[in-house]
């Protein structure tokens, strides 16, 4: 591709630029749209729809970049197959999150057009995170994402829980960002560069022992900051409160897209620039992985609120994903990528089911409210049952395959202890997943939930349910995509 010599090559960043332009245009549209009552709802519907279309177009644009490794903006931005894979997942997650919020917004006085735009803003940040090839672009992308997320968490302005969630998320998130930035500056101070490729070259030739203690400190701070973003133990404290407080479609969004983006970033940073220092960071990742799995398994047992329960469940899932990172190598990264794809569809499906839990027009969130659902909503109960068994990792559902690849990577890396702890905690976690199945199927009718409103939730549940239930029939596409993505990361 030929460009003017003075201008940076914009092709690798085309999807991001496209989304940025769309956001600006849609903001204008929103601002100049008529306001008041029904008009707000109309504007929010229109812009949600346009945002979903824009995200789908961005998926196509991103996919077109697959196969090559392109760098631009003074090597601060990279687009490779790994980035393409993760971006497609993130964009899918964001699009689904907007769809989930479609009816919810109107019913809960949340119909403001900024919602969809903020999600696209956050998505733009995530895409920049995934493509970051420099500590500075990493930080800029991360902050764009985080600031949008803080606002969305508090989007239900009149609800104290939502505003509390936003504030909590903001304060803790700012501390984490600060730690990450401090780590980045330590790295810069001790190496003299922020570029990932240069860092990788420096450490690869360096051997493990002679590396300066300052760099190790820097890595620890960066890991702490990233662990906060993926809500891994011991930086998970915000997760249950934010998940519970934020409006449910927002929680659904939080549990997938930002997590996938942050994990992709985590992988890129650990494998890329710090790949030569693997013996220094591996034990940290193993520790947070084990701690997350155990906490996710045990702390969720006593939860009665389904959103809180899902918060702990997502902590546990991050623990499993980190096993793949700890195992390292192409197989490890590939297993994380497969896990993330499956996790995306499972989680969106569960949250679509949670959004259907309404009684007398308002949301209910206790797991006891699901009692007898199999009688009144048989298809919804079937979907939730499939998702729960899949989350627990029971074959033949997709969740099992996610765990299968993760543990394959761990066994290949001879991390038997980690694998054994992993499978045992998955048995503990199975307890609370099947308890939901028990409430749905075994308990007698309490007071029926409302009939589902609007077709969008049903479509999402059906689509994700079919994916989760029949993943085993033809796993090859995701498998080979993840293989290519993992290979690209190591080739570069």
């Amino acid at each position, binding site marked *: 591709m030929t460009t003017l010599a003075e201008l940076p090559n914009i092709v690798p960043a085309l999807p991001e630029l496209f989304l940025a332009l769309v956001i600006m245009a849609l903001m204008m549209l929103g601002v100049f749209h008529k306001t008041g009552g029904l008009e707000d709802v109309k504007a929010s519907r229109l812009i949600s729809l346009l945002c979903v279309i824009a995200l789908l177009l961005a998926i196509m644009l991103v996919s077109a970049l697959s196969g090559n490794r392109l760098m631009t903006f003074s090597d601060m931005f990279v687009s490779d197959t790994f980035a393409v894979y993760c971006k497609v997942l993130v964009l899918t997650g964001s699009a689904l999150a907007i769809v989930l919020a479609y009816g919810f917004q109107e019913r809960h006085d949340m119909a403001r057009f900024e919602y969809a735009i903020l999600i696209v803003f956050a998505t733009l940040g995530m895409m920049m995170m995934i493509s970051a090839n420099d500590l500075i672009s990493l930080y800029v992308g991360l902050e764009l994402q985080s600031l949008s997320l803080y606002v969305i968490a508090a989007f239900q302005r009149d609800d104290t829980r939502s505003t509390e969630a936003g504030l909590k998320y903001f304060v803790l998130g700012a501390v984490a960002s600060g730690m990450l930035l401090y780590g980045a500056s330590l790295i810069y101070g001790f190496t003299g560069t922020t570029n990932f490729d240069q860092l990788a070259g420096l450490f690869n030739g360096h051997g493990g022992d002679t590396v300066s203690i300052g760099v190790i400190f820097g890595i620890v701070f960066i890991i702490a900051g990233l662990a906060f973003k993926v809500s891994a133990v011991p930086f998970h404290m915000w997760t249950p409160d934010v998940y519970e407080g934020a409006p449910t479609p927002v929680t659904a969004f939080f549990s997938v897209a930002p997590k996938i983006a942050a994990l992709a970033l985590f992988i890129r940073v650990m494998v890329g620039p710090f790949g030569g220092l693997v013996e220094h960071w591996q034990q940290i990742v193993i520790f947070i992985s084990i701690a997350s799995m155990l906490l996710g398994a045990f702390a969720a047992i006593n939860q009665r609120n389904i959103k809180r329960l899902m918060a702990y469940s997502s902590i546990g899932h991050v623990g499993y994903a980190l096993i793949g990172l700890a195992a390292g190598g192409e197989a490890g990264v590939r297993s994380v990528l497969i896990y993330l794809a499956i996790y995306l569809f499972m989680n969106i499906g569960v949250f679509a089911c949670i959004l259907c839990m309404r009684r007398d027009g308002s949301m209910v969130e206790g797991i006891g409210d699901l009692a007898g659902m199999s009688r009144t909503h048989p298809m919804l109960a079937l979907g939730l049952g499939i998702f729960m068994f899949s989350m627990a990792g029971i*074959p033949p559902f997709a969740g099992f395959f996610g765990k299968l690849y993760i543990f394959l990577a761990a*066994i290949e890396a001879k991390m038997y202890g980690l*694998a054994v702890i992993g499978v045992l905690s998955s048995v503990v976690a199975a307890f609370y997943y*099947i308890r939901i*199945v028990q409430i749905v199927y*075994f308990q007698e009718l309490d007071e029926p939930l409302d009939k589902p409103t609007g077709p969008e939730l049903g479509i999402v549940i059906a689509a994700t349910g079919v994916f989760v239930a029949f993943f085993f029939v033809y796993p090859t596409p995701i498998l080979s995509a993840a293989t290519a993505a993992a290979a690209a990361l190591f080739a570069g």
Partner: protein
Amino acid sequence: MTHIPILSLLTFLPLAGALFILSIRGEEGVVARNARHVALWTSMINFALSLYIWINFNPATADYQFVEFAVWMPSLNINYKMGVDGISMLFVMLTTLLTPICVLASWESIQVRVKEFMIAFLVLETFMIGMFCAMDMVVFYIFFEAVLIPMFLIIGVWGGPRRVYASFKFFLYTLLGSVLMLLAIMAMYFDSGSTDILSLTQHRFSVDLQIWLWLAFFASFAVKIPMWPVHTWLPDAHVEAPTAGSVILAAVLLKFGGYGLLRFSLPMFPEASVMFTPLIYTLSVIAVIYTSLVALAQEDMKKLIAYSSVAHMGFVTIGAFTLTVQGIEGSIYQMLAHGVVSAALFLIVGVVYDRIHSRNIADYGGLVHKMPSYALIFMLFMLASVGLPGTAGFVGEFLVLVGVFQVNTWVAALAATGLVLGAAYMLYLYRRVIFGTLTKESLTAIKDMGLREKVVFAPLVILVLWMGIYPAPFLDVMHVSVENMITQIETALQAGQAVSVAGQ
């Protein structure tokens, strides 16, 4: 040989039936009736298909037959592969025979959520057949563990008063065992580069690795069999499950463990198996004697039969680890016989439970006066359970004892006491339920078995006598496969010894 994918057809036909039932809509009564009929016909057709396998099966070879192969996960070299040999074919037959019987037995006793029940049952059949036909470890594992889902629902939704406790215990116990096996399968995959069962049988694992792998597999199979002391989920699950659930649980699911030991632990880890044989003998003898004594003290009929199952499965594990032709054939035969007999016994309990809604032995007595044909059938299966010559139970137990006597007379002697105790608790049960004077108020109006119930028992009666009087057709089918397996194990053991001698 054949180009029809008969095993896949057999495996997935019930699933298709289940999806069909799922699509039935309409009034509740109509849906229930249609669901019952679809389930019955699907399982009958499946049984007919399995007869095709039985007829076309070549007993002269130990090779897997009707083999199917499809590329599944090429990047990992994990493929979909199905096939049966002389051992697994018999279990497939057992499964396809019992499913229609179970559907028929639940015809009237399941009145709520009939549609869901039939779906769960057909899905269960798919998983069970798939498990016995799988020739790839990962495919095997998927079916093996997937069975938990329908069984969990069957116990939990249609079970008795303590069904939640029982279903959770069942689910978590078995899951805990199987996840360790999953890790072992992965370790085997990286050691040998394949998950194909045939090539894994040929692969020689180092003895150190074998020990760990054997223990991991044992964790899974011991829970499934179940062996003492991890058998405690079984009485709970049996007591709470609906009749058809108990039948399938006792008749087929318990065989997963024994089948797994024979298919994987023995041929793949021969050195470790020999090393752990004393452990198996000890646990099995304890199971035989201890659970027989426990059965003697039971007040609940289903619990008594559940404990008797544990005792009978003790014979299976003893026989399998004798590594003699008689012992292993006896162990397989015992599993098949137990599949038929325990299924019939649970159905027998189900017959009176449908009428009186009690499983307490004390609530019965003198039934012979009101239910003569019931008493006759009960007697037949009671005696088969005891191991009376001429019934299916005798052949298996006798072969096991012959096999173990060649290897270890003490174990044979102790196991034989289990037979005496077995006779004691079964006869005691029979006396309390059937004989005596009929004094209970609630029993005065009890009716004898109806036509549907007799139809349910007819194939089992025929089979239990056939297997007892003329066992040759069954033994012939498994004989070559068993001999081949023993040869393989012995060759592996000798090769291992040669290596260690050379090392010295």
